[in-house]
C-alpha cells in the first residue's frame, strides 16, 4: 500500500518546522512534497537583519540544506508558486503547470509586506523587506546609492534602517506613530531608543505621513514627499509599515479566511484535509508575526498530521527583542497597562536604564526594559507561569539577582560580555562560541544550545546567561515554554507536573506502565526521564512501586560516587558529624586493607575514602557494617548530612543541644530519597557555626526554642535560606522540617533543589501548607514517616547474592 501524500505550500520556517516535528514523531508516515516560491532552501528569515548589517552571510542562515530534503526523501520544488488548489480533486497546481496530489495539505504561505497605497509605490527602488531578494536589493542599493528612506519605525523597519546605515547610507525613518516601536514599547523606552539610534546617525520623522514617492530621471525613485509638503531625497524606499497574512491562495480555493486562514486549536482549516500554520493563519482572531508562536503551532499541527490527536494550540504571549547590535531592549505581554493594573518603574535616564513592570492581581502581566535586559527572560518566565509575585514584590524590579550564581566570573548581562568571556565555567565555553553555534546551526532553544555547545549542560548555573545570549541573538524567536508545560525530556511532551499527577491518579507503579499510559515516544526512555520516573513512582507509592536499579544513575546503583578514573568513593555515615574512636579505627583499617589512596574530610562533617575499586565495594561495606557503620548516601538524590555545631552540650554560648537535635533529624531522614540532594544543619545559637543559612533545612537554636529556615543553598547558586517559623520543642522541629521535606518530595521536580522549588512555588505557598494548615502539616509528616518505615541500609542489601553480581567483573581467559 502506498503512503498517504502530504503537500506543503511554503518552504519557510513555519512549514518546514512542522515537517521536522512530524518526521521526529512519525517518520515515514507520508510521502512529502514541498513547494517554495523562492529559489532557496529553508532559511532563517529572522537573521536577514544581521545579513543586511553585514554581520552574517546568506550561507550562514540556511536552516535546511538541499541534502536534508534528499535524506528525508522529500520532493522539493523551489522557485514554483502555487497557482491554485483544487480541493475537489485534492491537488495543487503550480504556475509552471506542475501538479501534485495530496491526502493532507499544509498551507504555510507566510505574509507579505504591506505596501502603502500611495502613488509611486511600484517604482524601481521601492521594496518591502521580507526575503533574500529584498535583502540583496538593499545591499546592492547601498553600494550604488546614497539616500534611503524607511517607512515604518517598527522592529523590521529599525533593523532595516540600522543595516542600511551600517552599509554607509544616509537613512531617514518616517514613522506614523507617536514614538518608535509603539507596539512593543511605552513612550519613555521609545524615546530612549530613538536617542540611541540618533547617536548612531539615524534620522527620524515621527507622526509623519508619506504622501507620494517621486520618480527621478533614471526612472528610479528619487524622493519622498511627506504630508505637509516636505520632500526628502530617496534612492531607496523600504516599506516596513507592517505585514499582511498571505492567504489569497487559500481564499481563492474557497477555504474560509478572515484576515488570515481561519484555523481551530488543532491548526485545521474549515477543510478537514487542509491544515495551515504560520503568519498566514488567523487563530482565535490573531495573526502572529513572530516566529516563536509559529513553532508552537508547528508542534501541534505535526501531532495532528501524525494522527496522534494530542495537543491544542491556545495562543501565545510574545516577547520582543530588537536585533540591533549594542541596543538592549526587551518587552513582553501587556507593557502599557491599564486601569486595573499597577506599575513598578525604575528610571535612570542618565545611566540609560529603564524598567517597567505591569502587574495585575499580584501577577506580572507585562514589562518593558531598556538598557538593562538581563532579567528579561526571567520576567517573561514569571509572566508565562502566572506565578503570584506577592512575596517577591519588594525586590522584583531589581531582577533575579544572578549574583549568587558561580562559575562565570559574576557575569550576568549577556549583551555587555565580550565574545571571549567564559560563560560556562564547567565546560569552558565562551560567549562567542555560543553565539556562533546559535547562528551557524540555527538553534532556537536552550536544550539545543546545551547539546551543541555543552554550555549549561553540567552544573547548569549559567543556564540563565545562556538563555539571555540566545534571546539577544535570535530576538523574538526566543520563547521559553511556561515552566509547568516544559516537557520532562525529548521522550515525551508531558511536563513533570503532568507525569506526577497521572502517576498519582492512575495509581501507576512501574516504569513500563507509566510509559505506556503516558504514550512515551521512545521504547524505554533515556537517561533523563527514567531516573525521574523511577523517583516519582517510588515517592508516590512508597510500598507498592518497586525500585528499578537500571533507572538509577550509577552512583545510586553502586551506593558510592563514581570518580573520573572509574573508581569509587566511600563515605560512611557519621550521625550529626559525630564519631567514635572505634569507628575511626575501623575506617583506618578499611582504608589500609583496600589500599585507599586518598582519605579526606568532607564539607558535611564525615570522612571520604576515595579511589576504591568497584569490585572491593561489597567487602569494604561488610567491614564497615561490622563496625556498626552504614551508608552515608553521599552519592544520592537523597538525604546527605545533618551538619551540627557543638551546641549546649559543650559550648559556652550554646542555647540548644544542636548535636542531639541533628542526630535525631538524621536518624529520622535516613535513606530518604528526594528530587535532589538534601542537606540540613543545626546550630546551637544564632552565631550559627553550622552554617544553617545555606542548607535545604536550617535549624538555629535560640533561647526560647528553634528558628527554622528553608531553601538555602551553598553550591551552584548561593542562596540564603528563608525564615519559615519558630518552634519550641525538638518534636516540633522534626514535624515542621519533616513536613516541608515531604511537601518537596511530593511536588519538587526531579533534579530541582529546594531553593529552586521554593523560587517556583513561593514561600507563601509553603507557609500555607505547613504553617496555616495544621492537619495538612501532620499529614505530610505522617506520610514522610510512613514512607521511611522500611528504610534499609543499601550497603547491607547490596551484598545479597543477586545484587552483588553487578560489582564483580567476569574474567575471560584469552590466548595472547
Amino acid at each position, binding site marked *: 500500500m502506498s503512503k498517504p501524500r502530504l503537500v506543503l505550500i511554503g518552504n519557510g520556517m513555519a512549514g518546514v518546522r512542522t515537517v521536522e516535528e512530524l518526521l521526529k514523531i512519525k517518520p515515514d508516515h507520508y510521502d512529502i512534497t514541498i513547494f517554495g516560491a523562492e529559489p532557496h532552501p529553508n532559511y532563517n528569515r529572522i537573521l536577514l537583519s544581521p545579513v543586511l548589517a553585514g554581520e552574517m552571510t546568506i550561507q550562514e542562515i540556511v536552516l535546511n540544506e538541499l541534502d536534508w530534503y534528499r535524506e528525508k526523501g522529500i520532493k522539493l520544488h523551489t522557485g514554483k508558486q502555487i497557482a491554485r488548489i483544487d480541493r475537489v480533486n485534492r491537488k495543487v497546481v503550480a504556475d509552471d503547470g506542475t501538479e501534485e496530489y495530496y491526502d493532507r495539505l499544509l498551507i504555510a504561505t507566510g505574509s507579505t509586506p504591506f505596501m502603502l497605497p500611495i502613488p509611486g509605490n511600484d517604482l524601481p527602488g521601492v521594496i518591502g523587506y521580507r526575503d533574500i531578494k529584498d535583502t540583496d536589493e538593499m545591499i546592492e542599493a547601498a553600494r550604488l546609492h546614497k539616500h534611503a528612506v524607511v517607512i515604518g519605525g517598527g522592529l523590521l523597519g529599525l533593523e532595516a534602517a540600522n543595516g542600511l546605515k551600517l552599509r554607509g547610507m544616509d537613512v531617514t525613518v518616517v514613522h506614523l506613530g507617536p514614538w518608535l516601536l509603539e507596539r512593543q514599547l511605552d513612550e519613555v523606552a521609545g524615546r530612549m531608543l530613538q536617542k540611541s539610534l540618533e547617536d548612531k546617525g539615524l534620522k527620524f520623522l515621527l507622526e509623519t505621513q508619506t504622501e507620494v514617492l517621486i520618480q527621478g530621471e533614471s526612472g528610479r525613485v528619487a524622493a519622498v514627499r511627506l504630508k505637509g509638503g516636505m520632500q526628502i531625497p530617496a534612492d531607496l524606499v523600504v516599506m516596513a509599515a507592517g505585514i499582511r497574512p498571505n492567504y489569497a491562495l487559500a481564499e481563492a480555493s474557497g477555504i474560509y479566511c478572515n484576515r488570515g486562514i481561519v484555523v481551530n486549536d488543532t491548526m485545521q482549516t474549515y477543510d478537514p484535509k487542509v491544515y495551515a500554520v504560520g503568519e498566514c493563519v488567523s487563530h482565535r482572531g490573531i495573526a502572529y508575526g513572530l516566529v516563536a508562536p509559529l513553532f508552537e503551532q508547528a508542534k501541534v499541527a505535526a501531532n495532528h498530521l501524525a494522527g496522534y490527536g494530542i495537543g491544542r494550540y491556545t495562543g501565545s504571549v510574545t516577547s520582543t527583542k530588537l536585533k540591533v547590535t549594542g541596543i538592549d531592549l526587551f518587552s513582553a505581554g501587556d507593557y502599557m497597562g491599564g486601569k486595573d493594573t499597577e506599575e513598578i518603574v525604575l528610571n535612570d535616564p542618565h545611566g540609560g536604564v529603564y524598567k517597567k513592570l505591569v502587574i495585575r492581581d499580584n501577577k506580572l502581566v507585562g514589562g518593558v526594559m531598556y538598557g538593562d535586559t538581563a532579567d528579561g527572560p526571567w520576567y517573561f518566565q514569571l509572566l508565562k507561569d502566572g506565578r503570584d509575585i506577592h512575596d517577591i514584590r519588594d525586590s522584583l524590579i531589581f531582577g533575579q539577582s544572578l549574583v549568587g550564581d558561580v562559575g562565570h566570573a559574576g557575569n550576568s548581562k549577556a549583551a555587555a560580555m565580550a565574545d571571549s568571556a567564559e560563560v560556562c565555567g564547567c565546560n569552558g565555553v565562551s560567549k562567542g562560541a555560543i553565539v556562533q553555534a546559535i547562528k551557524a546551526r540555527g538553534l532556537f532553544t536552550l536544550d539545543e544550545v546545551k547539546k551543541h555547545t555543552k554550555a549549561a549542560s553540567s552544573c547548569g548555573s549559567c543556564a540563565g546567561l545562556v538563555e539571555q545570549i540566545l534571546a539577544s541573538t535570535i530576538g523574538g524567536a526566543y520563547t521559553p515554554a511556561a515552566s509547568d508545560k516544559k516537557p520532562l525530556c525529548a521522550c515525551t511532551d508531558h511536563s513533570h507536573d503532568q507525569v506526577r499527577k497521572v502517576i498519582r491518579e492512575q495509581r501507576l507503579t512501574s516504569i513500563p506502565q507509566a510509559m505506556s499510559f503516558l504514550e512515551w515516544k*521512545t*521504547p524505554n526512555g533515556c537517561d533523563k526521564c527514567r531516573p525521574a520516573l523511577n523517583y516519582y513512582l517510588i515517592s508516590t507509592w512508597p510500598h507498592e512501586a518497586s525500585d528499578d536499579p537500571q533507572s538509577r*544513575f550509577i552512583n545510586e546503583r553502586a551506593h558510592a560516587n563514581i570518580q573520573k578514573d572509574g573508581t569509587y568513593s566511600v563515605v560512611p555515615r557519621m550521625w550529626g558529624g559525630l564519631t567514635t574512636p572505634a569507628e575511626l579505627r575501623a575506617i583506618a583499617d578499611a582504608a589500609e586493607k583496600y589500599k585507599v589512596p586518598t582519605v579526606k574530610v568532607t564539607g558535611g562533617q564525615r570522612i571520604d575514602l576515595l579511589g576504591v575499586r568497584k569490585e572491593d565495594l561489597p567487602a569494604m561495606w561488610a567491614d564497615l557494617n561490622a563496625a556498626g557503620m552504614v551508608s552515608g548516601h553521599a552519592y544520592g538524590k537523597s538525604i546527605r548530612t545533618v551538619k551540627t555545631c557543638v551546641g549546649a552540650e559543650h559550648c559556652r554560648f550554646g542555647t540548644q543541644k544542636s548535636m542531639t537535635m541533628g542526630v535525631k533529624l538524621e536518624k529520622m531522614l535516613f535513606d530518604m530519597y528526594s528530587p535532589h540532594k538534601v542537606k540540613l544543619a543545626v546550630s546551637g545559637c544564632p552565631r550559627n557555626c553550622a552554617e544553617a543559612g545555606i542548607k535545604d533545612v536550617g535549624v538555629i537554636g535560640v533561647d526560647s526554642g528553634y528558628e527554622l529556615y528553608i531553601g538555602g543553598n551553598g553550591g551552584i547558586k548561593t542562596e540564603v535560606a528563608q525564615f519559615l517559623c519558630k518552634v519550641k520543642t525538638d518534636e516540633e522541629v522534626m514535624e515542621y522540617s519533616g513536613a516541608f521535606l515531604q511537601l518537596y518530595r511530593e511536588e519538587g521536580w526531579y533534579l530541582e533543589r529546594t531553593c529552586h522549588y521554593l523560587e517556583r512555588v513561593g514561600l507563601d505557598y509553603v507557609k500555607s501548607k505547613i504553617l496555616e494548615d495544621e492537619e495538612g502539616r501532620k499529614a505530610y509528616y505522617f506520610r514522610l514517616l510512613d514512607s521511611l518505615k522500611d528504610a534499609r541500609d543499601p550497603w547491607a542489601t547490596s551484598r545479597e547474592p543477586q545484587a552483588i*553480581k553487578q560489582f564483580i*567483573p567476569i574474567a*575471560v*581467559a*584469552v590466548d595472547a
Partner: protein
Amino acid sequence: MSNWKPVCPLEDIPQLGSRIVRPSTGGDIAIFRSAADEVFALHDKCPHKGGPLSQGIVHGKRVTCPLHGWNIGLDDGQAVAPDVGGCRKFAVRVDNGMVMLAV
C-alpha cells in the same frame, strides 16, 4: 581470528543493564543487554574522556556515559550527534541462553 568464548548466562546481565568482562589480556569490555534481550559489546571506555560505559544507563540501543553524559550507540560504538567519536565494538551473541563473546 576471532575466538568465541562463553561469558555468562544471559540472565546474569540485567535488562537495560550491563556487565564488565575482563579478558586476561587486559582492556575491560562492557556487555549490554537491551529490553528486547539483544546483546552488545563495546570497549569499556567512552571516546570522550575514557569513562566506563558499563556503568551508564542503557536505553533503546544506546548507553549514556556516567561521567559527562555522552550517548554512545550500542550497535556501532559511535557517539550520537552532535558529539563525535567512537569506541571499539566486539562481536557477541547468545547461544542457548549463554552469552558468547568473540575475543
